[in-house]
């Protein structure tokens, strides 16, 4: 294309040479005459060019702190007496339309996760009604029709005589998930430190053996540890993963026309 332009722009076309400025116009862009090393997009433009979504800037120190505070306060409220989970399959508090059937036990049952296993006795039980009789109230501020509720009267009309106190945190608590992760980080740090030690001093094998011992004991009383070692997947009871979805099949990688006649 570049060779076709010719002196004086003879023949018109797309590659036009402009003798006055000494440039050549190719594809609507003005370029220097010397085109060595220039690569011109000849093909059509990509139909769906890659457009990564705009990313929000990372949090400043203050913002990170705000997020942290929020999660802390919220987690504390979730652990408190007012937090409830109904799990009744409704989206809001309004009455169902007549045409919509009421959610039944069976329709709410998730066969993959809701089957009771032994460890279900450890599951955190979510309350479905708030526990109102745990803290003192300023009864005068509530409307009269709600005051009996505040007393924590049970169905039989007995007033609980429990002592009531507000739950306060004296120090700023750590949010729940932070705590879970901290353990793991501590563990990896330990492991790293151990690895470094090994690198530094080879004669420290005795210490290493000591380190191994607790692990071995762990394996004995931790029945799941052995299996998690042997298999990379850690959720044996997840029925959805029992059948692989074909992602790992070799056929995908191979030439699809391998077994066909050519």
């Amino acid at each position, binding site marked *: 294309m570049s060779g076709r332009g010719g002196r004086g722009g003879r023949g018109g076309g797309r590659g036009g040479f402009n003798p006055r400025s000494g440039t050549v116009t190719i594809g609507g862009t003005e370029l220097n005459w010397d085109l060595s090393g220039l690569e011109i997009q000849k093909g059509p433009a990509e139909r769906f060019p890659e457009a990564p979504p705009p990313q929000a800037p990372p949090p400043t120190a203050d913002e990170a702190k705000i997020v942290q*505070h929020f999660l802390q306060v919220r987690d504390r409220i979730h652990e*408190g007496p007012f937090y409830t989970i109904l799990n009744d399959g*409704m989206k809001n*508090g309004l009455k169902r339309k007549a045409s919509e059937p009421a959610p039944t036990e069976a329709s709410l049952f998730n066969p993959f996760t809701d089957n009771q296993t032994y460890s279900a006795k*450890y599951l955190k039980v979510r309350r479905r009604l*708030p526990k109102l009789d745990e803290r003192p109230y300023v009864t005068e501020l509530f409307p009269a*029709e709600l005051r009996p509720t505040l007393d924590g009267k049970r169905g039989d009309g007995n007033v609980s005589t429990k002592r009531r106190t507000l739950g*306060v945190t004296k120090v700023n608590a750590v949010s729940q998930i932070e705590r879970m992760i901290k353990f793991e980080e501590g563990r990896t740090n330990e492991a790293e430190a151990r690895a470094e030690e090994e690198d530094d001093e080879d004669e420290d094998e005795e210490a290493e053996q000591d380190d191994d011992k607790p692990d071995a004991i762990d394996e004995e009383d931790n029945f799941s540890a052995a299996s998690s070692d042997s298999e990379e997947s850690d959720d044996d009871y997840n029925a959805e993963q029992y059948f692989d979805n074909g992602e790992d099949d070799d056929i995908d990688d191979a030439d699809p026309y391998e077994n066909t006649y050519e």
Partner: protein
Amino acid sequence: MSYNQRETPILAELCTFLVEDVYGELAARVYSVLARHGRQTLAAVAKASYLNSRQIKYGLVILLQQHLVFHSGNDSQPTYYEIDWQNSYALVRLGKVTKLVEDRFGRKAANVMTNLLRLGHTRIADLKEAYFPSETESDDDSDEDIKNGIGKKRKRGNGDTNQTAMTNGVTNGGDVKPVVNGDHAHTNGGPVGEPTQDDAEDDDGEIGSVEELYEVIERLIQKGWVRTMTESQYLSPGDMHDILQQETIDQDLGGQQPTGIKDKAICHRNTLERKRNMRDKWLEVPRFSRKRPADQDYSNPTKRMKVNGANGWSSTGGAAPEDKLVIRVNPEKIAVAMRTEQLVSLVEQRLGHVTAYIYRTMLQELEANTPRCYEEYPEPPTAGDEGGDNQIDPKNLVTARDVAKKINKNFDICEGLDPNAIVSITRKGHVRSSNVLSQPIDPSSLNTDEKTRIIDKHIQLLSEDPTHFVTWHSRAGYSQWHIEFPEIAKQLIQTEIENTVSARKGTLGVKLIRALRKKGKLDERATCNAMMMSAGDIRGIVNDLTVQGIVQTQEIPKVERREAKHSLHLIWYDRQRAREKLLHDTYKGMVRILQRIQFEREKVQPLLSKAERSDVVGNEEKWLSKGELDALRKWKEVQEKLSLQLFREDDLVATLRDFHGPLVSV
């Protein structure tokens, strides 16, 4: 009421999501009924909802305790309930409040504030009792080494009060009582976290004594962050208006319904005044019986709290008269502090961090005297009294000297200024004729007068900025300045709108907005002239911005028959409408973020419930595999990232909604 009481469905949805996110499903279900149906009695709620009446009552108690719902009081039966959407929206600011209080008053105050936010309102006596139980148990302190509730519950095995939820409504006291009686400060979810040794750096945030607690509370009340709670604060704006208007009619108009224009004006004016008085009464600082030590300087917000242990105060034995007081967080103050933060960060971008620091000092000086960002019930202007009363309250003025007294000695105030200005103030640092350089100026050795003048230079920078962050007032106290918040707020709003337009339509969109703002209503030809562009180039932008609701259109027929050909088609830009549209869009964005968080949580829900299991808590490294911990960490990142975006959008909401009242159109 004001325009921001106007409710949109999207806002109702947002508030319901927030309530659900923070207080759980029961509260949110009851809330959603009230949000959908408006002011309702208990019976009407029960009729509109699928919940049973016991659930509704429980839900209402939660909502009332946390100030998410108004009620109409006991004077007139039946009681009506109505959502308090402003307070419900403020749930998104839980983290911000804590952070702002922590920055201003230290960690102890932040701790008290967090507890107040969690508890709604409370008597001071109850709060004291919770912090410092009057009966001292000797055995319960030993095993409280985990601060979060779950850890303890696991240790106590059967004492998990959550398990009572299984047997709903049935008394299983045998299971619960041992714990609750054993240490009463220790019921579910509200344990008294005892700091452990590894929290050595944390004991800064722990409140050590009853006196200290009172001191913190008193300080927060004085600064306007906490206010006393009265029953009138439960009145919804509509109920309050009705009551006060009736009072006005009874007292000022002799019980006659106002008929004439003049009577109506009087009625309106006096009602507004009553509203202002009532609201100001809520903020009155009650007298605290304890004597304040003489050295305490309460006018200084940047000063840290002094710990004065037991210097001659009466011991905790006697009940103080203020124990009866009921206190709650003052929601109006939060917007004031958020405004300070936003302005300071804006100054930091434009003029550098030293000037921003000085500006922050000025703003925080004013914060104590600023109960709210704008007057919600302004006095209606009277005829013939235009612009005469431009008196500024001396409490809203700041001098450079005030700032000089407040700022940290070691702070290098010379940074960010023209060196020549500093040299001309200090009269040092000349290059002599003998080419000997004198010693550089040490900012910590400046005397107060020089400091004042240097700070004044910074303030001048602020006032010369196109945004006019400060305005000169008088010469008293070297130089006295005031801050025209309404003007700045308007500019902030305009900037946000222009930012949005420029992100959506590029510079041409902004050009169009500015042209329309300057010229008013234009038809196409006039728009082309004003923008010096051809009609074809403009049309696309005008169409898009009109569809997005930022540019308004109007059609004026020129002939009797309304033919398009013979009509004028005008476009114009209305700041207030664009602002409301943008606010609406922002609410929508926040709803989407909350939905996204919910979805992401559902994805990891099995893992989360495993991690919450009582045998796993505390033994995460034993029972959770590496993959599961990675997934947990990923969920944490996702949650934080989305929450961060939520709070950023909340900042935008504050700019658009909270810093300025409704703007008068065109």
